[in-house]
């Protein structure tokens, strides 16, 4: 659907009053016609072109059922109207269209009456400065010629070149360890002039030397979704030179956006029911330089509407065939300490860099990027060591959830159910070492999670178009929407991860995989990817499978994957901390858990637990893709594995440092698996400080990271089948081992 045209039309054409006497114009307002009724803009244009040259077909409004057809000549429009108005049109699926002449009135309807300023002073945003004619026409041509000779990286709607450091759109950050080189010689002169600007030389935080340049080429009609450049990525001012074409840039600030960190609305919010948006628009002519510092850089979203024409001072400005922007920045080394905390990814957890993130992503991460997932995964693995993407804090996800839930009065009758379900309430081990950790590491975790596992993709692809799929424990939502012909709903117990899903435009909610908030039999399929191994007893794992089966329809399928004891890369296991003893019994009693942990770590929780992660290969963190060493099963079963293999391989090689009883044959399935949160992401946050102080996390100076432990029960061979066969009403239709995971596919009877 052509949204660009829609915007133009909404802004520029008056919807005629029905029945009014009309002077013919070149523009026909056509009702009962448009993409929403199956007629593409091109088809419409072809049909109308039979009457004369058609300048454009634009959508009128958002319904998709009305268009404005603009002819070059008034008489052609009149002829078309005469021939087609109220008549059945065989060329357009026999539709009967209704037509009126429309009047083009740019200034009246332009952009919701948002006046477009031509000087930065008129905008009144501190830190916003526009220098018209910063470069000459000759310089402009030279710069354009230089970049045109070089190769572009093609994004969904525009092309880019990166110099100094590559800006990684998936992470919305740069990788400091991957310097591409110095800025190219053809910008030397411009950079030298930029470096003398008072905004840079006199700014509070250093903006010099400029060491990163992104060149963007926007074709006519392409804009930029509203966003704030990631605080943690760049420091000081951001400078953007507009070449070749012009555009209107809109600046937006949400004045009542008080729920950034917590997700909890303030009273004020509740009263008003919505946040207020301040908007300013500024015309950026070719060869102008835009400087964003301080408030303009840190707390205002900037946005370029996807228009082909802009309305400025009552006139219409056609955008050029393309606009090429040269954006100069200084890569940040260390956390952002700005005072605009609520927009700062260095200081607040999981903040959206844009309220319209999904748009951003769709623009900047096209599907073709998936082809590069391997590469990207590698990059991200390095990043997670070296630090880069989001940061996070204890901030509140946990607290927040509690608050949200506690707001509610619990009816007395439901309280009485307590004792009966005591056995499946969430054990402390999971609250602390699963939920709390994922909340704390969510943005960083998410930024390393985009490799899609082919077996999951194959399962999703096998579903009929129109299927509705529940992803239980969806994490950052990387599988949501993977089959575009299906509808996905994700849920996860971590509000911080669900917030990331929502920002990406996915349908997701906060819920517990053991208590899915869905009616029974609704879904065509359900998936549980790398979730069950975070549940700490058999009863809970069975319950989670029961829930998956419950929510799918008869004949519906459920895919479950879990980490295997049998890791393909056994070195990984050495980085994990085995937990002492076997956990065949429910870990439901807090005291039991605590005492258990104490046994393995003496007094203060985790400090004393040794960790075997000497070599931190990049893979370290990549969830679904690996597994561990083989051990045996809890309940005494040998899971069909040869006992020979077990006796030879059983103990992780370094497990002698465990305080455990150390029986060589004891299977080891309970682990803490470390997550390394790079210092410069963690240090400014009270969360990590608090986690460190309480012993919940620890420092690893060698790696420069705060280490969080996640609880895992890794599955032995045969265990997942035995577990799922306990669930009534479903049969196993497939089970397999792949990439260090055990997997089953169930079908509901």
């Amino acid at each position, binding site marked *: 659907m052509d949204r660009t045209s829609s915007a133009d039309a909404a802004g520029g054409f008056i919807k005629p009053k029905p029945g009014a006497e009309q002077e013919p114009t070149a523009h026909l307002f056509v009702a009962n016609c448009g993409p929403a009724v199956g007629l593409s803009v091109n088809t419409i244009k072809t049909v109308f072109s039979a009457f004369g040259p058609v300048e454009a077909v634009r959508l009128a409004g958002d319904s998709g059922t009305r268009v404005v057809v603009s002819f070059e000549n008034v008489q052609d429009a009149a002829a078309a109207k005469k021939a087609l108005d109220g008549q059945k049109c065989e060329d357009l699926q026999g539709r009967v269209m209704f037509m009126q002449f429309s009047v083009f009135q740019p200034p009246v309807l332009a952009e919701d009456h948002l006046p477009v300023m031509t000087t930065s002073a008129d905008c009144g945003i501190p830190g916003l400065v526009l220098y018209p004619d910063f470069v000459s026409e000759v310089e402009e041509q030279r710069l354009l010629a230089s970049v045109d000779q070089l190769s572009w990286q093609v994004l969904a709607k525009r092309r880019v070149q990166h110099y100094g450091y590559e800006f990684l759109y998936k992470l919305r950050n740069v990788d400091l360890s991957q310097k591409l080189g110095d800025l190219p010689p053809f910008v030397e002169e411009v950079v030298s002039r930029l470096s003398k600007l008072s905004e840079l030389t006199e700014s509070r935080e250093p903006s010099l030397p400029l060491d990163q340049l992104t060149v963007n080429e926007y074709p006519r009609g392409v804009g930029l979704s509203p966003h704030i450049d990631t605080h943690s990525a760049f420091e000081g001012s951001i400078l953007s030179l507009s070449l070749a074409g012009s555009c209107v840039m809109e600046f937006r600030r949400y004045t009542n956006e008080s729920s950034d960190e917590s*997700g909890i609305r303030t009273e004020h919010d509740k009263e008003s029911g919505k946040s207020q948006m301040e908007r300013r628009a500024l015309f950026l002519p070719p060869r102008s330089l835009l400087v964003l510092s301080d408030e303009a850089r840190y707390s205002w979203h900037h946005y370029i509407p996807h228009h082909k024409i802009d309305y400025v001072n009552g006139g219409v400005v056609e955008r050029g065939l393309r606009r090429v922007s040269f954006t100069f920045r200084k890569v940040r080394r260390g956390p952002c300490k700005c005072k605009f905390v609520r927009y700062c990814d260095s200081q607040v957890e999981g903040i959206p860099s844009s309220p319209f993130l999904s748009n951003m992503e769709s623009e900047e991460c096209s599907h073709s990027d998936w082809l590069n997932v391997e590469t990207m995964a590698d990059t991200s693995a390095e990043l997670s060591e070296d630090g880069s993407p989001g940061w996070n804090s204890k901030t509140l996800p946990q607290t927040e959830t509690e608050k949200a839930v506690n707001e509610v009065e619990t009816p007395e009758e*439901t309280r009485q159910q307590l004792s009966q379900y005591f056995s499946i309430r969430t054990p402390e081990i999971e609250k602390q070492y699963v939920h709390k950790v994922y909340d704390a590491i969510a943005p960083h975790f998410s930024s390393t999670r985009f490799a899609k596992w082919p077996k999951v993709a194959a399962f999703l692809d096998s579903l009929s*178009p129109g299927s509705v799929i529940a992803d239980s424990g969806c994490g950052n939502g990387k599988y949501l929407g993977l089959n575009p012909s299906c509808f996905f709903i994700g*849920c996860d117990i971590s509000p911080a991860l669900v917030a990331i899903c929502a920002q990406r435009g996915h349908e997701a909610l906060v819920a517990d995989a053991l*208590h899915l908030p869905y*009616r029974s039999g609704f879904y065509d399929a359900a998936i549980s990817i790398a979730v069950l191994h975070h549940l700490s007893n058999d009863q809970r794992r069975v319950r989670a499978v029961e829930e998956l089966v419950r929510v799918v329809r008869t004949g519906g399928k459920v895919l479950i994957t879990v980490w295997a004891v049998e890791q393909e890369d056994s070195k990984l296991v050495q980085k994990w901390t085995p937990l002492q003893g076997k956990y065949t019994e429910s870990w439901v009693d807090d005291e039991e858990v605590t005492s258990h942990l104490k046994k393995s770590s003496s007094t203060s929780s985790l400090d004393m637990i040794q960790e075997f992660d000497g070599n931190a290969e990049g893979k370290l963190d990549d969830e679904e893709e690996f597994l561990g060493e083989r051990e045996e099963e809890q309940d005494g079963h040998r899971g069909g594995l040869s006992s020979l293999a077990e006796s030879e391989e059983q103990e992780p090689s370094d497990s002698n440092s465990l305080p455990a009883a150390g029986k060589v044959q004891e299977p080891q399935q309970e682990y803490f698996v470390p997550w390394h949160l790079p210092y410069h992401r963690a240090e400014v946050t009270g969360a990590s400080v608090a986690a460190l102080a309480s012993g919940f996390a620890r420092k690893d100076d060698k790696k420069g990271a705060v280490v969080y432990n996640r609880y895992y029960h890794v599955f032995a061979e045969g265990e997942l089948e035995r577990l799922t066969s306990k669930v009534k009403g479903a049969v196993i239709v497939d089970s397999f081992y792949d990439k260090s995971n055990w997997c089953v596919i169930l079908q509901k009877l």
Partner: protein
Amino acid sequence: MRLLTHNMLSCNIKGVTKGFPLSIEVQKLDTKETDFNPDFLRNIIPKLEWKAFHDAAVSVGLNDIPEQVDPVMLEYTEFLQKFHHALLEVHLEEGALICPETGRRFPVTKGVPNMLLLEDEV
């Protein structure tokens, strides 16, 4: 949260027998354009609890969804468009979902329902 999602959601507090449909408390709505897919719409209809969908549409201010759906209507593009809009394009951004039996209120914040139960509700 879309109305399609609402149609799947149920309050599963222990002991609740009629946790569906949740009533909707609206504080803020949003509309997000979604690709029109008539096949998907036709496929989804049998799954929906239509009365609940109709009532949900009314509670978000959409009064053009018929109280009953007839297969014949699936041939009408106009109907499918209204259906599409109500099902997929209108989002509850801020508000709450309320259990019809217990009155338990599940908050919806930034488009995300929080359906977590308290420990003594499971």
